[in-house]
C-alpha cells in the first residue's frame, strides 16, 4: 500500500504541474477544452491524494513499522483513536493532510461554482494546483510520509504523551481546515486580479469560504486553548507561544476582512484593502506552518520542528511577490465607487475596527519574530515573553471591544445626533453602572473593570437590537414573540449571527479579565494533612491529601494523588491528579511521565490541582493548586462564537444583498453613479 501511496504522490506532482500550466493558459486564451482539463486535474489530484492518505492510514493501522513515520509516531499498544490521529501528529502526515484538504476544498469550490464566474474559474483551478504542487513537492523531495527504514523495529516510539488527549485529536485538523480553506478565497482573489474582473462577484464566491475558514480557525484556537489548559498543567490557556500566535494571526486578518468586505458590498469601498487582507491571510497561514515546521523560533511545540523550513520560506516569498505584485498591477482598477462622508458612520467604525485588528496582528507578528530580528541585526537573541504581548495587546483588545459595540449600531454614511442617542443611550448607561458597581465593590484591576464595563456596553447593544427587531415583527406581523425571534434571525442570518458572535466575544473578554484574579499556591502534604486556599470570591477551599496510588491503565502506568475537597465546610468530593508513565507494548517507558491535572469547574471558577511529584518516593506529595476565575466562560464563549458563525454561514434563500448584487454586474456601476 505504501508503494502505491508513494506512486500516487509522484503522479499527483506531475498532474498538478500540468493542471497549473493549462489552467493559466485556459484563462488567457479562453479555450474551454484547456479549462476543462485544468478542472479535471484538480479532481484527479484529489483522487490521488485520497489514495495516498488511505495508504498512510493503512500503514498506521497495520503497524507497518518499516515506514519511518509509523515507527516515529505510533506503537502497538497505542489506542486506535490516537493511532488515527497520528496521521497528522507529525510533519510528514500533516503535509499530506494539507494537500488533501486543499484539493478537496478546491474540487468543492469548482463544482459548486460550475457555470458561474467563468472568467475566474480557470485561474482559480490554476492557483489551487500551484498550492497543491508546493505541498506535494515538499513531501516528495523533503519530507516523504512513505519513507522506509533500513530495518523493521519490533515496535514504534509511540505518540508524544501530551498528544494523547481528545483535544489534540480535534485541534490540529480544525486549524489545518482553517488554514487550508483560506486557499480558496486566495485563489479567487488571484483569479479576479489576473482576469481584471474586479466587481464584487468574486466576493460572493468566497463569502462562505471566508466564514468557514474563520469558523475552523476559531474552533481550532479554542480547542488548542482547552488542550493547553487540561494537558500542560500550568493553569493557563494562552501563553503567546509562537505557534499559538501563528494560528491567531490569520484569524485576526480574516476577522478584519469579514468586517471590511461588508463596506465593499454595501458601498463599493475598500477594494484594494480587501484583496490585500485575503492575500495577507493566506500568507499568514503559510507563515504559521513555516513557523511550526522550521524550528526558527524555539517553543514548546519543538516536537514539530524539521528541515522543510526553506521550502516554506521560498513559497512564502513567491506567493507574497505574486499576490501583492498582482494587486499593484491592478491598483488603478480598484478605485472606490463612493467616498466616505463622515467620521461618525458605520464605515468609519469598521475602518477603525480594521485598524485595531491589523495593529494587533502587526504587533503579534512583530513580537513573535523579534528574537530573529534582534539576532540578525545585533547578533543578540532576546526573549519576548507574555508580559510584552499583554502590555500592547490588552489596551488594543479593549479598544476592539468598544468598537464591537459601536460598529453594528451606528448609521451608514453619517450618523445624526438623534441616531446616536437612540442607539447608544442604554448601552452607555449599562457601561457606566457596571463600572460604578465594580468600583464600589473595590475590584482592584482597572483593566478588568474596563473590560466588564465594555462587555456590558456590547451586551446591551446586542440585546437592544434583538428586542427592537422582535418587537417590530410582533407589531407589524402580529407574530408571537418566539416566532418573531426565529424569523428575525432567519431573515437576516448574517447580521444576527454576527451579533451572536459578538456575544461570544464578550464572554471571552469576561474570561480573559478574570485571569487578573487568578490565585495559585504550592504545598507539600503528607497523607491526612490539609491546606486552606481562599477563593477571590471570598470562600475557602479545604483540601486534604488522601494518599497516592499506582495502577495500570490502557497503555500507561498511573500514579494518582487524591485530595478530598470541601468548600466552606461543605464536602465537594475527591479530586485525583495524576502522573502517567506511558509504556510501549514491551512495558518499557516511551517518554518521561506526563502530568494529568484534576479540574473542578463551574461558571464562577475552576479549582485546578496539579500533582507535581512525590517527595523521595513516599506518599508525601507536592501539589500546585490554582484557582482560576471564569475559565468556563472561555469554553462556552467559544461555543457561542461558533454557534453565531454557523448561523451566519447557514444558507439563506435571499443570497447577497441587492446593493452587493448590483455591484457584481458591470451595469451596476452605472446605477451607482446615477444614484
Amino acid at each position, binding site marked *: 500500500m505504501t508503494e502505491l501511496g508513494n506512486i500516487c504522490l509522484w503522479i499527483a506532482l506531475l498532474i498538478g504541474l500540468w493542471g497549473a500550466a493549462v489552467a493559466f493558459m485556459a484563462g488567457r486564451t479562453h479555450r474551454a477544452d484547456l479549462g476543462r482539463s485544468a478542472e479535471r486535474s484538480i479532481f484527479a489530484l484529489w483522487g490521488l491524494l485520497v489514495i495516498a492518505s488511505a495508504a498512510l492510514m493503512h500503514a498506521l493501522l497495520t503497524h507497518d513499522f518499516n515506514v519511518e513515520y509509523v515507527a516515529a509516531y505510533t506503537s502497538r499498544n497505542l489506542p486506535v483513536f490516537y493511532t488515527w490521529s497520528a496521521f497528522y501528529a507529525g510533519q510528514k502526515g500533516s503535509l499530506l493532510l494539507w494537500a488533501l484538504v486543499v484539493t478537496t476544498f478546491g474540487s468543492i469550490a469548482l463544482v459548486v461554482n460550475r457555470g458561474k464566474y467563468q472568467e475566474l474559474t480557470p485561474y482559480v483551478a490554476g492557483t489551487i494546483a500551484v498550492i497543491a504542487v508546493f505541498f506535494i513537492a515538499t513531501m516528495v523531495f523533503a519530507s516523504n510520509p512513505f519513507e522506509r527504514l533500513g530495518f523493521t523495529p519490533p515496535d514504534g516510539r509511540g505518540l508524544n504523551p501530551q498528544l494523547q488527549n481528545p483535544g489534540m485529536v480535534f485541534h490540529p485538523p480544525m486549524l489545518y481546515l482553517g488554514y487550508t480553506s483560506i486557499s480558496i478565497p486566495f485563489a479567487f482573489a488571484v483569479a479576479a486580479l489576473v482576469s481584471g474582473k474586479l466587481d464584487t462577484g468574486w466576493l460572493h464566491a468566497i463569502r462562505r469560504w471566508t466564514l468557514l475558514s474563520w469558523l475552523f480557525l476559531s474552533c481550532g484556537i479554542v480547542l488548542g486553548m482547552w488542550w493547553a489548559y487540561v494537558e500542560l498543567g*500550568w*493553569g493557563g490557556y494562552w*501563553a503567546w*507561544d509562537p505557534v499559538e500566535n501563528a494560528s491567531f494571526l490569520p484569524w485576526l486578518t480574516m476577522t478584519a476582512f469579514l468586517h471590511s468586505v461588508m463596506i465593499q458590498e454595501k458601498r463599493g469601498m475598500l477594494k484594494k484593502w480587501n484583496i490585500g487582507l485575503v492575500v495577507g491571510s493566506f500568507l499568514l497561514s503559510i507563515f504559521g506552518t513555516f513557523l511550526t515546521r522550521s524550528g526558527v523560533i524555539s*517553543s*514548546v511545540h519543538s516536537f514539530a520542528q524539521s528541515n522543510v523550513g526553506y521550502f516554506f520560506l521560498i513559497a512564502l516569498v513567491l506567493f507574497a511577490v505574486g499576490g501583492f505584485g498582482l494587486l499593484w498591477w491592478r491598483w488603478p482598477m480598484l478605485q472606490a465607487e463612493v*467616498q*466616505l*462622508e463622515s*467620521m461618525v458612520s458605520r464605515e468609519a467604525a469598521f*475602518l477603525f475596527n480594521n485598524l485595531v485588528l491589523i*495593529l494587533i496582528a502587526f*504587533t503579534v507578528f*512583530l*513580537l513573535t519574530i523579534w*528574537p530573529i*530580528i*534582534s539576532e540578525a*541585526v545585533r547578533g*543578540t*537573541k*532576546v*526573549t*519576548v*515573553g507574555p508580559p*510584552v504581548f499583554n502590555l*500592547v495587546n490588552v489596551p488594543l483588545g479593549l479598544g476592539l471591544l468598544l468598537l464591537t459595540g459601536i460598529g453594528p449600531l451606528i448609521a451608514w454614511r453619517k450618523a445624526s445626533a438623534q441616531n446616536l442617542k437612540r442607539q447608544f443611550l442604554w448601552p452607555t448607561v449599562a457601561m457606566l453602572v457596571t463600572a460604578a458597581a465594580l468600583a464600589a465593590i473595590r475590584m482592584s484591576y482597572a483593566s478588568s473593570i474596563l473590560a466588564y464595563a465594555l462587555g456590558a456596553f456590547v451586551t446591551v447593544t446586542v440585546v437592544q437590537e434583538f428586542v427592537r427587531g422582535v418587537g417590530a415583527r410582533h407589531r407589524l406581523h402580529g407574530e408571537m414573540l418566539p416566532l418573531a425571534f426565529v424569523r428575525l434571525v432567519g431573515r437576516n442570518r448574517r447580521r444576527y449571527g454576527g451579533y451572536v458572535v459578538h456575544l461570544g466575544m464578550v464572554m471571552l473578554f469576561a474570561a480573559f479579565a478574570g485571569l487578573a484574579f487568578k490565585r495559585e*499556591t504550592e*504545598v*507539600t502534604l*503528607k*497523607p491526612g494533612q490539609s491546606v486552606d486556599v481562599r477563593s477571590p470570591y471570598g470562600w475557602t477551599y479545604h483540601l486534604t491529601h488522601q*494518599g*497516592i*496510588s*499506582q*495502577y*495500570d491503565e490502557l497503555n500507561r*502506568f498511573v*500514579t494518582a494523588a487524591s485530595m478530598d475537597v470541601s468548600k466552606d465546610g461543605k464536602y465537594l468530593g475527591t479530586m485525583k491528579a495524576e*502522573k502517567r*508513565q506511558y509504556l510501549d507494548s514491551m512495558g518499557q517507558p516511551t517518554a*518521561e*511521565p506526563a502530568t494529568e491535572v484534576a479540574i473542578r469547574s463551574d461558571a464562577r471558577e475552576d479549582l485546578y490541582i*496539579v500533582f*507535581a*511529584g*512525590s*517527595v*523521595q*518516593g*513516599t*506518599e*508525601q506529595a*507536592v501539589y*500546585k493548586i490554582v484557582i482560576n476565575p471564569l475559565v468556563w466562560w472561555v469554553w462556552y464563549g467559544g461555543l457561542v462564537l461558533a454557534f453565531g458563525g454557523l448561523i451566519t454561514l447557514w444558507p439563506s434563500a435571499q443570497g447577497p444583498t441587492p446593493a452587493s448584487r448590483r455591484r457584481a454586474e*458591470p451595469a451596476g*456601476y*452605472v446605477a451607482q*453613479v446615477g444614484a
Partner: protein
Amino acid sequence: MWRKSALSLLALALAATSLAAQTPPGAGPSAQDSALSRQLKARPGDSLGRLEVPEAAGRGVAAVTARDNSALVRALEEKIHCTCGCNLSVYTCRTTDFTCTTSPAMHQLVLARLDSGMTEAQILDAFQRQYGEMIFMSPPRHGFNLVMYFLPIVGLGVGLGLVVGVVKRWGKVAARDRVERAAAPEGVATPEELEKLKHVLEHFEA
C-alpha cells in the same frame, strides 16, 4: 426512590471493592485489582508509605517551603527566562514542567544569590552577565529594543493618521460631489461621473 437505588448500588460497589482487595495475588488480577493491591502494599502501617514504583511518579521533588514561592522569589523568577528551550519563565517552568531539570537549578541559583545578600537588581544583572539579554522575559527597554516597544505605538499613530486623513479627504470629495450634483441640471452628469461612465463602458466593451 432513586436515592435508595443509588445507595444500594454504592453499597454493592463498596462490597465488591473490599472483595477485590482481598483477592490473593496470582488470581488473574484486573487493572483495578492491581491498583488496590499496589496501594495496600504501599501502606506498610506507618503514616508515610512508600511508592512501589517511585520513578513512575516522575522526577523526585523536594518539599516546598514558604521561601521557595515568596513574593520576592516569584517576582524575580517571573522576569527570568528558563534556558531549557521552553518559552516559559523560571517560575512557570519549575511549577509546570516537572520533567525540567534546568528551572529547579536556576531557582536554587536565585535562592543562593539572595542568601549571599544580593539585591533584586544585582541578581538580574548577574543573570544577564551569565546568559545575555535573552535571559529576560521582556527585553530591556534601551537601545535597539526600543524599536520593538515603540513600533506598535508608531503603527497606531500612522494607522490613525491614515484613517483620519482618508476619511477627511473622502469627506471633502463627497461634499463637493453633493454640491455639484445639486447644481447640475436634471439628467446632466458631472465631469467625474462622465469619466466614470466612460471607464465602465470601455471596460464593458473590452
